[in-house]
Every structure is written in structure tokens, then in C-alpha cells.
């Protein structure tokens, strides 16, 4: 591509078309540009256009296109062709800085971005004169140009703030410091002087303050990794000027905007950050300056207003004080009573006040309000910063600070008492103050876990919280009501039980409040109270204590779900779940009505699932309804099926992916309640459950396996008789699952159920294939998890079909296979099997191999008899071997059975542990003794001689113990 007018012309036309709203015009133009961007001179044509085009739109469009082109193509990837010709690279680097600086702001920003992308690749080695070129512009005196340079420098250097220390990085920083630090310092001083010269010229000041802010940001980046020698030597200049700027005010720079931070605020915020950086990392060198900054920042806080535009500044400034006040060697800066009082009065209290912005959020944006207030996403708020400062000060001054605040709390409560309607915000601040003063440690699960002992939480509750909760009009002062409810909730572990019991009915009535925040808090508080533990691992609040309020509780919870804005309120749904679980049998009379409401809700949300937590708790509540009711009377299961199946069918038909794992779990729960047959409604669904598309979603696998297990347990025979053609599909699922390291244990769950519950003849023809698949996997990629599951499976097989069948099966696949499995897998690995049921299966299976398998007695397998017995005794007596070879470290953590990930497991759909051996074998050690006895009587003399020749002494002693316990002797 030549750099000529014709090409400029045609590119201009294509660029124009890329702005066309009609995709038929736009797309081909974009395609064309992509197809030519590999040509030499293409980027130079773009630069020419953005510089010279008469059309402003085309100039901006060319700038954006150029930046995107650089972003896509500049980096040279190893083994890939260089996408920008060397001549173009050189030309771009030679011109772009000047071009950027002479362009209007919109274009300047794009080019500045492009420079930093290029800089990231080329600076400093391949662009050695960039910095000098930039620095030279400092002398231009034109602050539009200077700010362009500063902005570009900022985008080049800001990575120093987050990258790891390395020789390469530090070499670059050193180079930057060598060329940049001194001119930057000179510029900083000159700019401050100019601010004084132009103190009355608002336009000049605006530009100059933007420069100062950028310079301060550059200071932060350049000082981040370590304290550079240059800045240590020039600390006086920088810190004195920073300090001066912090205390500076100029009416001309004050803005009227309440929300958006002005230039003064931005600059001062950055200076607070710079001071905090030095205080944290370079304390030794910064010490002489620190007290001045503490005073300046504290004065700044005292004189800064409540407007939102100051929020960042105020929270940065408070965080600075908070981080300094808890360091032992700065303690003295704060310990004076007047200082403390002043900080409490003028910094903390004002920033805890409920502002109109908070009030707006409380009313109109309750979700956001709750997230901030309850879930702690309030990191940058003033209240949070003030709270952190309280905590910091309490480290050394808990007593005095508590005393000072007690005075404030009392006076604010006094103000409120005088005129609640007018002064309710004072009480809000008082409660907030008490909360932040009292709470030392907190978790979602338990609320406040450590409190300030100097604050009497119970007294405050009785005197100031209870009255709000008891107020008959739940809709009056909703903020104070929400505060009161929150107080109960977070201090639940500190308040005595009788107070909590007194609060319960009051909280129940607040479920009816119109305010979303208020009724949400009430639901949340109840839910948290219901999860508190009492003595003996039971709940603190018992169903009996709840009896008088049960009906009201359930009514109000379900009514709250109908309040506007709370149709899918997760806190309420969670409270419903928790109430069911707490109340147990007491809910049975209400279930016929409630199940209708729950299924109705389910039908509604399944149209468009959007609140995952709400949906999860909804399904949990359904499970609880089923379990609690059917435990009392299992025949009611059919009425649940009647109510639920129509909705489930709809969910399955519409393939509502989020809900399928839940539906499978609820269906498993229902099916497991049936006694010994499988209703036809379930059988109709069976073939669909084998569809590969369902199994491709990992979240479906655990619940589907469980559901198939329920099918097999209840209807193994029906499947064999009426759906025998589906058996290969079922085994196909097994094959699919054992091919995955992540899911193989699920495959074993399935095959174990098949072995246990399917009539033997129905699977005879498949058995050999099953083993071949397992052996292939064992050979190809055996993991500890796989081996553990495999051992359980073969022993279950042995228990079910006998040791001879197992041995013959193995040897039919390959001669001497049985011996190899014994020697290489069973004997060395059995120690790793874990879980009581799994261990029992293995013990019984191995006992059978030892005592019921003739080829163990008189073939070449005989040499394995004693080692196998030794392994079994070790299995009984030695601690479990949980060693895992190195390379499996990672798989095992994420994928061991029981560690269910990425699947929405319902806690209340829980499955009971199934023991296929059950009571048939009480104590496997006794079984071993008895079986050995039987074997020894069948071939007298053989067993004792095998024992005496090679069983080790310890094992022999254990074995004698078993024999004695079973009162048998070997002959």
C-alpha cells in the first residue's frame, strides 16, 4: 500500500462505512480493513488520516482504529510472523508522541493508549529515546502538552504498582528514574509556583491542578517498588509540597457538583495515598514527616463536608489515620485526650451519620443497601472507614475511646428522645456507633464473635432496641426498625436467650413491614436465630418454644414473599427453609397448603431462573416438606408426586438447565421413599435419563447417578424384565463415567448398584466387558481414587457371586490374571480403602477369596495366600494409608468422592448410607476366624502350616485374638 492520496481516499471511505448502522454496509467494510491491515504503510495511512482529515468523525474513527490495530498486532509472538513491518514500527515510534501531543483531547487519549501498548513491548530497549523526548516537552511551558506527556507516562508506569520485583523491571525503573525523576521534580516545583502566580485564574488553575494530580500519581508509581535513592534525597521537596497542597484551599476550584469529585479532591486523595504508601513501606525514612501529615489529614477531615464528592477523599484520609494509629511508635500522636476526643467528635461521628444518599438507597435500591450494610461490600464507604478507625484506635485506647463515645451515644439518644420524628437519624448514628465500637470479630455464620467488654450490649438492647421492635406500627421509622433488627442479628451470640425469645415474635411481625430492607432483615434475623446451637448440639430455640408462633411465622413468611419487590427474596426463602427444618413435625398440618404455594412459586421462577440462591432454598424447602411429611406417613409421597410432577415435567421438557440437578435430587428423594416397587410414572422417564446430552453437563452427573441408583434399588427386576433393551445404555453411562478421572467414582456407584440389585442373569452377558473396561482404565491411567473404587467393586462382586466366579472371570480374560490382580492391586493397595462400608465389603470379599477359592489352595496362586491374609490383617489393624503419589495431588483434592463440586447439592435431599452387606456380617474379624476354621477343617493341617511358615509374628498374634474371640481353633 502506497502512502498516497488515492489510498487515503479509499481508506477514508471504508472507515466511514464501518460507522454505518446497517450491518450489510458495515460488516464488509470491517472485513476489508482487516484484510488489508497486514500491508506495509497501513498504520501510517491511519495516522495521516487522524492528523489531516477534514472530517472530525473520520479523525476520531482513524484514531480508534489505529489503537485497536496496535493492540492486535504490535506484540511479536514467538514463532509467529511479525505483523507490523519494521519500517512502519520505526515511523510510528518516531512520530506518535508529537502527534499525540498536538492532537485534540479525544484523539490524544487514543494515541496515549497506543503509546502505552507499544511502550509495554518496546520500552525501554527498543524505544530508547521515548523518555527523553517526553521529558523535553516539560520545558514547552504548554500545559496541554505537558498533561499529555504526564498521562502517557502514567499509563506506562502504573504497572510498577502491581508487578513483582525482578531485575528486568527494576532496571527499567532505574532507567526511568535516571531520566525522569529530576525533570518531574522540577516540573512539580514549577507547577506549584505557577499555581500561586495564577491563583486567580480559574482556567489556568484547572489545568495546573490536573498536572499536579498526574504528577502525584506518577510519584506513587515510581515509589511503589522501593524507595528510590533520588526520592529519598528529595523527600524534603516532595513532602513539604505535598503537605502544602493538602492544606491548600482555593475557592475557585471548589465545585458545585455534589456527586463528582473535583480537582482538589482528586489531588488530595492521591496525596493521602502517597503518604499512606510511605508510612507503610518506608517508615524509617518517612518518620520525620509523618506527624505533620497526621495533623494535616485530620484537619482536612474536620473541614470536609458531607457531600458524596468527598467520599473517596474522606475514606482515603480516614484509612490513612486508621493505619497509622495502630502502630506502636505512633501511639503518642493520638494518646492525648483532646486529640482523641477531637478525632471521635469531628472525624468519626460525622462520618457515621445517615446521609440522604443512604436514605435514597434504603428506599429505592434496597438490594444495593442490603449488600453494603449486611454483606460488607462497603469497602470504600465513609462508614466503613470510620468503623476501621474506631477499631484501630481501640487497639491502644479502648477505654478512653469507649468512654468518649458513650458520651456521644447518650447525647445523640437524648436528641432523639426530644423529637423522634425530627431526630431519628441521631439514633441511627448512635446504634451504628455502638455496633462498630462493640464488634471486634464477626462471621456470617455466627454474627459478632468477640465484643468489646466495656460496652453493655444487653443493657443497650433493653433500653434502646427493644422499644423500636415493640412499636406497634411496623412501618414507622423503617430505618430505625432495620437497625434494631440488625442489632439482634449481629449480637445474637452475646444476648441472653430470654431476650432472643422475646425478640422472636417481634421479628415475626416485622416480616409484614412494607419496607423491603426491614422485612428482609426480619427474615434474615429469624433465619440466623434458628441456626444457633444450644446445649447438646440441638438448636438454641426449640420447636416447643416456637409452638405459640408457628402459624404466625409461616403465614408472615409466605405473605412477605408476596410483598412488592420481594417476590424472589432469597432471605425470606432461606428463612422458610430454616423454619421448616427447625419446626419439623409441627409443620405437617400446614404442608398441604404450603406445598401448593411452593410449587406455584417454582412454576413461576422456572420460566426465567434469575436468583440462584432463592431457587436453591426453594428446592431445599420442597425437600424438607417431603421428608418431614413422609417420615410421619410414607403413603403421602403420592400426593407430593401429584403436586410436583406436572411442574417437573415442564422443567424437563423445557430443559431448564439450572433446575435439572435439583429435580433429579427431589425425584430421588421421592423414589427412595417408595417401598419395593417402582411406579409406572417413573418407568416412563427411565429411557430419557440415559440421554447423553444430560450427562455432558457435569452438574447433572451426581444427582443423575443417585437417581439411577434409586431406580435400580427399587426396580432392578422391573428394568430387567420390561426394559432389558435399556441395559446397554445404562452400562454406556457407566463406561462414560469411568473414562473420566473426575467422575469415575460415580461410575462405580452405578455399577455397584447394578451388581447388587439387577438379577444376575440379566447382566451375565456384559460382565466380561465390564471387567475389560476396568482393566483398560487400570492399565492406562490408574489413580488412587480409581483403585480404591475398583477394590470395593471387585470385592462386592466376590461377595455377590462368590470367589470362584471372580477368579474364573479374571482368568478367562487373560491367563493368570487373578494372581496378578491379587499381587499388584489387592495386596499392596487395600490399605488405602476408606469408609466403614467400603472397608467391610473389602474385608468380607478378601475373606471369601482366602477361604472359598480352591485355586488359592493348590495352584501357583497358593504363594499369595499368606501375603493376602497378612494384608487383610493389616487392613484390620493398621491405620489407613492415605499417602498419595505426587502427581495425583491435585486430582485427589478436587475429585474424591464426597467432595461434590460444581453441582448444587441439596442438603435436605440427603441420602442415607447404604450397606449392601448389612447385618449379614456383624464383625468381619469374627467372620475371618470362622471362615478360616471352616477351611482348616476341610483340609486339616494346611492352614496352620501356611501360617507358621510365612505370616509375621504381629499378624499371627492379631489372628489368634480373632480366633479366640470367635472361640474357634484351626486344625
Amino acid at each position, binding site marked *: 500500500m502506497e502512502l498516497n492520496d488515492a489510498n487515503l481516499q479509499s481508506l477514508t471511505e471504508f472507515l466511514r462505512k464501518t460507522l454505518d448502522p446497517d450491518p450489510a454496509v458495515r460488516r464488509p467494510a470491517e472485513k476489508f480493513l482487516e484484510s488489508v491491515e497486514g500491508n506495509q504503510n497501513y498504520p501510517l495511512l491511519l495516522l495521516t488520516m487522524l492528523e489531516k482529515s477534514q472530517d472530525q468523525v473520520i479523525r476520531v474513527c482513524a484514531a480508534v482504529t489505529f489503537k485497536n490495530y496496535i493492540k492486535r498486532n504490535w506484540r511479536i509472538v514467538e514463532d509467529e510472523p511479525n505483523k507490523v513491518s519494521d519500517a512502519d514500527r520505526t515511523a510510528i515510534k518516531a512520530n506518535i508522541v508529537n502527534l499525540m501531543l498536538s492532537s485534540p483531547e479525544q484523539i490524544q487519549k487514543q494515541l496515549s493508549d497506543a503509546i502505552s501498548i507499544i511502550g509495554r513491548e518496546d520500552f525501554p530497549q527498543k524505544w530508547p529515546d521515548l523518555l527523553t523526548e517526553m521529558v523535553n516537552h516539560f520545558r514547552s511551558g504548554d500545559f496541554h502538552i505537558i498533561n499529555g506527556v504526564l498521562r502517557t507516562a502514567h499509563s506506562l508506569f502504573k504497572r510498577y504498582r502491581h508487578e513483582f520485583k525482578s*531485575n528486568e523491571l527494576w532496571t527499567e525503573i532505574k532507567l526511568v528514574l535516571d531520566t525522569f525523576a529530576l525533570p518531574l521534580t522540577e516540573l512539580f516545583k514549577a507547577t506549584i509556583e505557577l499555581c500561586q502566580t495564577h491563583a486567580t485564574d480559574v482556567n489556568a488553575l484547572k489545568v495546573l491542578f490536573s498536572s499536579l494530580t498526574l504528577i502525584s500519581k506518577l510519584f506513587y508509581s515510581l515509589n511503589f517498588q522501593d524507595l528510590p535513592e533520588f526520592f529519598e534525597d528529595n523527600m524534603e521537596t516532595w513532602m513539604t509540597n505535598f503537605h502544602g497542597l493538602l492544606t491548600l484551599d482555593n475557592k475557585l476550584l471548589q465545585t458545585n457538583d455534589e456527586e463528582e469529585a473535583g480537582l482538589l479532591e482528586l489531588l488530595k486523595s492521591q496525596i493521602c495515598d502517597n503518604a499512606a504508601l510511605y508510612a507503610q513501606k518506608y517508615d524509617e525514612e518517612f518518620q520525620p514527616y509523618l506527624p505533620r501529615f497526621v495533623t494535616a489529614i485530620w484537619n482536612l477531615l474536620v473541614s470536609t463536608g458531607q457531600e458524596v464528592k468527598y467520599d473517596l477523599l474522606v475514606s482515603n484520609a480516614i484509612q490513612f489515620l486508621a493505619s497509622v494509629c495502630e502502630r506502636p511508635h505512633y501511639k503518642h500522636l493520638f494518646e492525648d485526650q483532646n486529640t482523641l476526643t477531637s478525632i471521635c467528635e469531628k472525624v468519626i461521628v460525622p462520618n457515621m451519620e445517615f446521609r440522604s444518599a443512604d436514605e435514597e438507597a434504603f428506599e429505592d435500591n434496597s438490594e444495593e443497601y442490603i449488600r453494603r450494610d449486611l454483606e460488607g461490600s462497603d469497602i470504600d464507604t465513609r462508614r466503613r472507614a470510620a468503623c476501621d478507625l474506631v477499631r484501630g484506635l481501640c487497639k491502644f485506647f479502648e477505654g478512653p475511646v469507649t468512654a468518649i463515645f458513650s458520651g456521644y451515644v447518650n447525647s445523640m439518644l437524648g436528641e432523639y428522645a426530644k423529637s423522634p420524628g425530627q431526630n431519628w437519624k441521631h439514633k441511627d448514628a448512635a446504634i451504628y456507633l455502638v455496633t462498630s465500637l462493640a464488634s471486634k470479630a464477626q462471621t456470617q455464620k455466627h454474627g459478632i464473635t468477640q465484643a468489646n467488654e466495656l460496652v453493655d450490649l444487653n443493657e443497650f438492647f433493653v433500653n434502646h432496641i427493644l422499644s423500636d421492635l415493640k412499636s406497634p406500627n411496623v412501618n414507622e421509622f423503617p430505618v430505625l426498625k432495620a437497625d434494631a433488627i440488625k442489632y439482634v442479628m449481629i449480637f445474637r451470640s452475646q444476648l441472653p436467650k430470654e431476650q432472643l425469645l422475646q425478640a422472636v415474635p417481634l421479628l415475626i411481625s416485622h416480616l409484614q413491614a412494607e419496607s423491603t430492607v426491614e422485612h428482609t432483615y426480619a427474615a434474615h434475623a429469624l433465619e440466623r436465630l434458628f441456626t444457633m446451637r444450644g446445649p447438646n448440639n440441638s438448636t438454641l430455640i426449640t420447636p416447643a418454644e416456637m409452638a405459640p408462633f408457628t402459624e404466625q411465622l409461616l403465614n408472615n413468611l409466605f405473605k412477605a414473599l408476596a410483598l412488592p419487590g420481594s417476590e424472589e427474596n432469597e432471605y425470606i426463602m432461606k428463612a422458610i427453609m430454616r423454619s421448616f427444618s427447625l419446626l419439623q413435625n409441627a409443620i405437617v398440618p400446614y404442608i398441604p397448603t404450603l406445598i401448593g404455594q411452593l410449587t406455584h412459586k417454582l412454576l413461576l421462577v422456572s420460566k426465567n431462573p434469575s436468583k440462584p440462591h432463592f431457587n436453591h432454598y426453594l428446592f431445599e424447602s420442597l425437600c424438607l416438606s417431603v421428608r418431614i411429611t413422609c417420615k410421619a406417613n410414607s403413603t403421602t409421597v403420592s400426593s407430593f408426586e401429584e403436586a410436583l410432577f406436572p411442574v417437573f415435567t415442564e422443567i424437563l421438557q423445557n430443559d431448564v438447565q439450572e433446575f435439572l440437578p435439583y429435580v433429579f435430587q427431589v425425584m430421588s428423594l421421592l423414589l427412595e421413599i417408595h417401598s419395593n416397587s417402582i411406579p409406572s410414572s417413573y418407568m416412563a422417564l427411565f429411557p430419557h435419563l440415559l440421554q447423553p446430552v444430560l450427562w455432558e453437563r457435569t452438574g447433572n452427573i451426581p444427582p443423575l447417578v443417585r437417581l439411577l441408583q434409586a431406580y435400580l434399588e427399587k426396580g432392578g427386576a422391573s428394568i430387567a424384565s420390561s426394559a432389558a433393551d435399556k441395559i446397554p445404555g445404562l452400562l454406556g453411562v457407566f*463406561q462414560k463415567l469411568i473414562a473420566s478421572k473426575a467422575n469415575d467414582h460415580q461410575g462405580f456407584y452405578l455399577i455397584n448398584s447394578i451388581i447388587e440389585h439387577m438379577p444376575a442373569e440379566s447382566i451375565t452377558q456384559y460382565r466380561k466387558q465390564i471387567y*475389560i473396561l476396568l482393566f483398560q482404565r487400570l492399565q492406562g491411567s490408574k489413580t488412587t481414587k480409581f483403585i480404591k473404587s475398583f477394590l470395593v467393586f471387585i470385592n462386592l462382586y466376590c461377595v455377590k457371586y462368590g470367589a470362584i466366579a471372580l477368579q474364573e472371570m479374571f482368568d478367562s480374560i487373560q491367563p493368570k490374571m487373578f494372581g*496378578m490382580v491379587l499381587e499388584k492391586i489387592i495386596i499392596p493397595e487395600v490399605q488405602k480403602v476408606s469408609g466403614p462400608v467400603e472397608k467391610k465389603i473389602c474385608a468380607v470379599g478378601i475373606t471369601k477369596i482366602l477361604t472359598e477359592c480352591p485355586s488359592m489352595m493348590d495352584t501357583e496362586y497358593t504363594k499369595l495366600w499368606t501375603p493376602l491374609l497378612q494384608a487383610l490383617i493389616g487392613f484390620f489393624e493398621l491405620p489407613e494409608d492415605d499417602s498419595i503419589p505426587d502427581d495425583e495431588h491435585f486430582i485427589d483434592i478436587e*475429585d474424591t468422592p464426597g467432595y461434590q463440586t460444581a453441582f448444587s447439592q441439596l442438603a435436605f435431599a440427603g441420602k442415607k448410607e447404604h450397606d449392601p452387606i448389612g447385618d449379614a456380617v456383624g464383625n468381619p474379624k469374627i467372620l475371618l476366624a470362622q471362615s478360616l476354621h471352616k477351611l482348616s477343617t476341610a483340609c486339616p493341617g494346611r492352614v496352620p502350616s501356611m501360617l507358621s511358615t510365612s505370616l509375621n509374628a504381629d499378624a499371627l498374634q492379631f489372628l489368634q485374638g480373632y480366633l479366640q474371640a470367635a472361640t474357634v481353633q484351626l486344625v
Partner: protein
Amino acid sequence: MPTKNVDERISKFKNKGKDPAKLRDKRISACVELRKANKDENFMKRRNISVDLSSDYISNEMVASLDIEDIIKDVNSNCRESQTRGCQAARKLLSQERNPPLKEIIDSGLLARFVSFLSMDDEPNLQFEAAWALTNIASGTSWHTQQVVEHGAVPSFIALLASPMLHISEQAVWALGNIAGDGAAYRDILIECNVVPALLARISPDTPVGYLRNLTWTLSNLCRNKNPFPPLSAVQQMLPSLIQLLHLSDKDILSDACWAISYLSDGDNDRIDVVVRTGIVPRLVELMSHEEISVMTPALRSIGNIVSGSDLQTQVAVDAEVLKVIPVLMRHQKPSVQKEAAWALSNIAAGPCRQIQQLITCGLLVPLVEQLRNGDFKTQREAVWAVTNFTSGGTVEQVVHLVHSGALEAIINLLQVKDAKVILVILEAINNIFMAAEKLGETEKLSLLVEELGGLDRIEMLQNHDNELVYQAAHTLIEKYFGDGDVVGVKVESTEEAFVFKTSDVKKTFEF
């Protein structure tokens, strides 16, 4: 004047391969430094300004002041007296406190003359004055030193070591020290010229203390610098004398001898071994308690280097009861000392669990947690490494002990530091602690504890960190211990309705 940064020590961790945690790999601190040169280090080059070398010394005040032209004239003359006068005036100029005219003297072409004077054994005064002038020129930048060497001063100075006039010999010692201090290249040239035996020959019970100070300093410069290290044979030659010097009581000698040892031990395990085998470790540990900070600092540095070696080497320091001294130094008033002590601690914590147990037994966890809480940032950084090493190598019980000592709370508080690497190292420690909790079946309890200590909030925030590795580590922790993870699947043949259950033909025999 130190002209370049001298803090070039490799701070490293023992790398034991057996450990899965990558963080225990060697920690090599970047050689590039942004900071001011460390004030605690000793000088690479020194100028002789006025130190009283001998009775023959003629102080600067007594020497006439001449301007450079006159000096040039005098030095270049053939008259011994003028030459001596010129040399004296030159060394006076070169000894002035501010801006000595090193370059001017070099540019005036006097170096060749000075060097030639060095070999005039019959003119001891001239020898001495020329040696002094050259010493001061060699104390400048590398370029200045280079001029001295390129004018052939090295063999002459080495010859001068044997001078019967003690003050002349001593001036040669000094000049050679400046040349050796310039860097590995000149150091090795000196060694090849057999400077070591010539120097060691001057050590005797009668050698004056002042002379020994200079000599020890020169020896320390001959041990100094890496890339490459000084040749092993030279090191072996010097070590017995250094050990001898370390048993004297003069603080300057002790300081420089300790620095020498610190340079020799600042290398791989083989280098450390050479030092450890001399049996000097107990003495070094003793010197860590020396009241002079100039002695204590290099002794601490040496021991710090040694405990970065193998487990056996570390054990020698532990057996010398270094663990009794470290707590004291961790509470030293100077942050730089605290930092070095914490660094040593972090390396011992990277050892096997029996050494970790000794840390616990000797009460090191208390100062460790103190430093994590209230230390200077540089010390906190080392302390964080100590925690991470401890948690990756310690037994479950040891890790539990550490958590109970308050270390978990302290490192969680440090998650807000402005240093991405430190944050990453802390996240690794938290992960290690979780792995220990897993073995006890107490992950849930630990999750609650971390949340209670404000850790969950901080880790969640780190998911927005600009550093990719920090973000990933935070994300992994949240996923693993505070949320759900993902699983992977594999492909098997299927139709629309079901998977196909079939076995591929078995060709291979099974062999497990």
C-alpha cells in the same frame, strides 16, 4: 567513596525438591537496586586523608600547597627533592576533604611517574608519597582505579608489601585494597600476581593494630564480589588467617574479618561449606552479640548466609545456639538488623521439621509474630517468608502451633500491603495452613477463623488485584475453601438416546 551499590547478597532459600511449594525455591534478590546504598555496609574503597601511619609521617599541614602546574613541574623534574616536594603536594591535594582533583592529576600525566617512584627502594620518602597519592587516586571511581592499574602499579605495590619500612608497606596494603575493591576483575588480577601470600606474610604477633586493620580490610576486599567468586585456592589460603583475626578483640579488625566471611559465605552450598568447615561458626554466633553494630552486622550477615545453605550447614549454626541470639536481634532498635535477623529466621524455617521444632522450642515464634504485627515493612516481608516456609515444611502440629501463636491473624492483616509479591506469599501460607487443616478435618473451622479475622473480605478483594498471579491465588483459595470448584469430563461414543457400551479390541495384554 562507595560508587555502586554493595548490597548484592543473594538471599536465597534452600531448595529441596521434595517440597511441592514452588515458593521455597531459591530467593535471589534482584541485583538492581533502587535504594540508596546501605549505610551499614563497609567501604569498597577508602581515601587516605590524614590517618597517622607512622612516625615518619608528615602531616598535610606541614606540606606546602602548590598548584597543579607546579606539582607537574616538580614531579617531572630530575631532582629528588623536587620530586618528593611535588609528590607531597599532590597527595595533599588528593587528600583534601572535598572534590580532590583526581582527574586533573591523571590528566596531567603524572601517574607513570608516581608508579616509577614506587620501586625506588633507596628513596623511601618518595616511595611513600607516591604510594599515598596513588592510593587516593585508586579510591575514586572505576575509571580512576583503572588508570592506576593500567600504569602498572600492581606489581610495584605487591613488591612494596615486603618493604622493611612498615608505613610504606602499609600504604601498599591500602592501595591494593582499593584496587581489589574495584571488582572481581582487578581482584583476580591481584590474586594472580600472588598478592595473598605477600599480604599474609605480614601478619605476625608483632604487627601493629593499625597495620592489621588495613590488612584485614584489604583481605576482605579480596574475598569480596561475585560473578565470578574469588578462586577457591586463594580463599583457602586466606581463611586460616581470617579465622585468626576473628579471634582478636579490635572492633575494626573484627568488623572487616566478619565482612570477609560474609562475602565468602554468600554463595552456593559449596562456598558455604568452605567457611563452615573452618569451625568458625560458633565464633560468628558469639560475634552476633557484639556490642559494636559494625561487628554484629557482618556477623549476622555471615550466619544469615550460612543458614541459607544445606540442612547440615544450618544445623551447625543451630548447634552453636544461633536461635538464642536471633530473638534479641529481631528486637534490635535498628530496622535493618531486625530485617536481617528475620531473613535468617526465614531460612531456618525453610528447613526440615526438626529444625522448625527448634524454632518453636527456642521461642522464636513470639518475636516473629511481633514483627509481623508491628515491624518495619522490610522486616515484615522477611517474616512473611518465614511463615510461608514454616507452613510448607512444618508438620500439622507445628502449623497448628504457629496459628495459635497469632501468625495467621498477623499475616491476614498484612494482606493489605502494597507489595504484590508479599501478598502472594501470604496467600501461599494461608493455603498451606488450609492443607494442614484438611489433614485434621478442620477446614471448615479454619474458614470461619479466617473470615472472623477479616481474611475472607481481604481475599475476596484481592480477586480484583491487578497482578494476575495474586488474582489467581486469591480466586483459588476462595473456590477451594469458601466456595465450589469445577470438574472435567471425557468423551465416550454415544447416540441421541444413550451412550454406547462396548469394549475396544484388546490387543495388549494387561500388565499392572
